[in-house]
């Protein structure tokens, strides 16, 4: 009899749907059906048992091909790379659990590495804004139960967070919002008329890159001052109309996305969005929330904050004190400035998602990928270490986009022999301690990692 696993968390986006029902085959080896998931979440579960999985670490050979090696060998190689580099960079963690992130931090602290996560190229700007201006936010259930005005600004949940609108914001009926969609005003602000804009009551086509100016106009108008006839492509009347709606809301939430974080001004677009939210709280209740991308990309920000006080871009190279300054200690800047000499890509795909120039810089040095799947990063690595898929094969706590921890379950076993991120990092940590002890015993002789890197200088 196939077995149904209920209340399964989805390891795709920051919406962290935890209502999936997954049907597993008799022998517990095959995922047969996934209910309640969006198209993307669905794909993740089916992909886990659908095709061939990598079951052993693979080490790059002189001819450029990969050779399977044991986990012990991989752990040894990885530990030596970390140990010998002057400034290794450990990056990723969009798709692992918090237990894995805590273990990786222990490794980074021991190795004197820079520890960074995907927020660095995603919602890192939000952190910068939060540092400067705070974060008047709420949990998603608050929005569902109370909100009568929703703003999506530079965010396109129809594509990036497929169930966000139905679970939390536009459509659900909550405690004080019994009429669901009918009782809510939806405002979408985006340079593109996105699929999200299709469901908006009001759509403002902001000129790309001028969000800050538009926020500035909103704030100025909210305080009763004159504004120009047109700002960022939006007519004054429309700005005033939206300002009135916002001021008269009972409870509003601004959801914002990469449209703010990826364009000119980055953090200040978010910063001024927060200022607007603060202003609106003088009139009524408003909250703001970052549309965090991966299902647990909020996780490293949480874990590393309680461990070190910084959510990302942690420079642990001094080994006795942590430092953070995005723009310097952020992965892409470190790459472009040739500041690091080894790269660990963990649970993400820097090969596909970094600008190719940054990839080329990083590739001058050893590159190790830890990921369940074949991806661009794994295909240019010196070492690829497969691990179990969190949320499918490995349980653990993940943090939803509103910082609510969700306990994820295991649906099936990982392929035989494949270990979890947490176990991998615990083993690397142990090996690092041994290397340190060996070095202390021998004096200052550096061990050279075994295995040969392909000659691949671009």
């Amino acid at each position, binding site marked *: 009899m196939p077995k149904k696993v209920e209340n399964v968390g989805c390891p795709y986006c920051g919406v962290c749907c935890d209502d999936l029902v997954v049907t597993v085959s008799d022998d517990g080896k095959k995922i047969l059906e996934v209910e309640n998931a969006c198209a993307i979440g669905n794909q993740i579960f089916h992909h886990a048992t659908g095709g061939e999985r990598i079951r052993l670490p693979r080490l790059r050979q002189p001819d450029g091909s990969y050779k399977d090696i044991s986990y012990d060998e991989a752990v040894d190689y990885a530990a030596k790379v970390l140990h010998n*580099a*002057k*400034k290794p960079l450990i990056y990723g963690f969009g798709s692992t659990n918090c237990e894995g992130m805590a273990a990786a931090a222990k490794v980074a602290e021991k*190795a*004197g590495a820079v520890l960074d996560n995907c927020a660095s190229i995603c919602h890192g700007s939000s952190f*910068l804004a939060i*540092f*400067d201006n705070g974060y008047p936010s709420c949990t998603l259930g608050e929005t569902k139960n109370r909100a009568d005005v929703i703003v999506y600004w530079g965010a396109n949940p129809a594509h990036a967070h497929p169930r966000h609108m139905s679970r939390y914001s536009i459509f659900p009926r909550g405690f004080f919002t019994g009429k669901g969609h009918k009782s809510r005003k939806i405002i979408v602000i985006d340079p593109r008329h996105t699929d999200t804009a299709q469901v908006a009551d009001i759509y403002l086509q902001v000129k790309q890159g*001028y969000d*800050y*100016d538009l926020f*500035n*106009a*909103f*704030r*100025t108008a*909210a*305080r009763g*001052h*004159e*504004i*120009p006839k047109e*700002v960022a492509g939006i007519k004054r009347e429309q700005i005033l109309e939206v300002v009135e709606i916002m001021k008269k809301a009972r409870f509003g939430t601004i959801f914002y996305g990469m449209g703010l974080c990826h364009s*000119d*001004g980055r953090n*200040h677009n978010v*910063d*001024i969005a927060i*200022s607007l939210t603060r*202003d609106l709280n003088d009139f009524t209740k408003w909250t703001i929330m970052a549309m965090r991308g991966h299902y647990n990309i909020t996780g490293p920000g949480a874990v590393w904050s309680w461990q070190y006080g910084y959510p990302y871009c942690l420079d642990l*190279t*001094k*080994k006795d004190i942590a430092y*953070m*300054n*995005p*723009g*310097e200690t952020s992965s892409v800047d470190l790459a472009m*400035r*040739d*500041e*690091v*000499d080894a790269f660990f890509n963990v649970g993400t795909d820097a090969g596909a998602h970094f600008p190719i120039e940054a990839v080329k810089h990083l590739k001058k040095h050893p590159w190790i990928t830890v990921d369940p799947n074949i991806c661009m990063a794994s295909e240019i690595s010196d070492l690829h270490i497969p691990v179990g898929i969190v949320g499918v094969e490995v349980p653990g706590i993940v943090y939803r986009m509103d910082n609510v921890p969700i306990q994820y379950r295991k649906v099936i076993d990982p392929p035989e022999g494949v270990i979890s991120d947490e176990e991998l990092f615990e083993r690397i940590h142990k090996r690092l301690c041994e290397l340190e002890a060996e070095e202390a015993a021998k004096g200052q002789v550096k061990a050279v990692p075994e295995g040969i890197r392909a000659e691949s200088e671009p």
Partner: protein
Amino acid sequence: MKTVTLTLTNPSELLLEGQNITPDNFAGKKAAEIAALDVWEGKQKSPLGKYFTVEGDGGATAAETKIVLRGDCTRVKRIGQQMTAGEIVIDGNADMYIGGWMKGGKIHVKGNVDSFCGIGMEGGELIVDGNAGSHLGSSPRGEWRGMKGGLIRVAGDVGNDTATFINGGTIVIGGDADIHVSTHGEGGIVVVKGNAKGRVGGQMVKGDIYVYGTIENPLPGFSMVGEVEQEVDGETARFAHYIGDLGERHPTSKGKTVYANIYTRI
């Protein structure tokens, strides 16, 4: 005043962090002791002498110590960080954080500098003959008490986020400024002698900005209130006077609301 000359003869592979290169740390030390001070290349801590040849001894106090850096310091960070007195001359370029958290003394960079120079500055002078990167005279992350005092002078262009959270002091830019000047400012003076791209004075509470050229995209939160004649950096000129950021909170003083000012030269 005694002079210590550091010549970068053995450049690092990665970037070098030289927060110990300050008159405060060199004062009272012989050349050999200075060469033994720590610098960091990633996690590797080494003596300064591994990368630099050191000539000359430090003065008795920081104020009596001058440091001259020769060689290509493009990849040396944090020179003059937290210095309180004395002088540093960098013959060419330097990297990030030059004069960061500086309290006194003078730094003269004859080339370009990278980002975060003069951040958290409280006093002293930072002179850059070339260009500067982002976050010149800005505040460190999360700190609302930005630049408090001192003078920064950059002859060339600067990157984005100049003087974020500025509370005091003066920044004079000879060339153009990229977006965000004095964002969240609550005091201080920024002079841009070239053009400014946009987002000048956003979320600004108090303080003054002068732009001699044009502001490509002025913010809607600033409103023109008249024309004034003012003396700026030794010369007198006529300016259009704008107040703002009208979207931001503003304190009142003696019953009048205090705004931030932008002056653009007519």
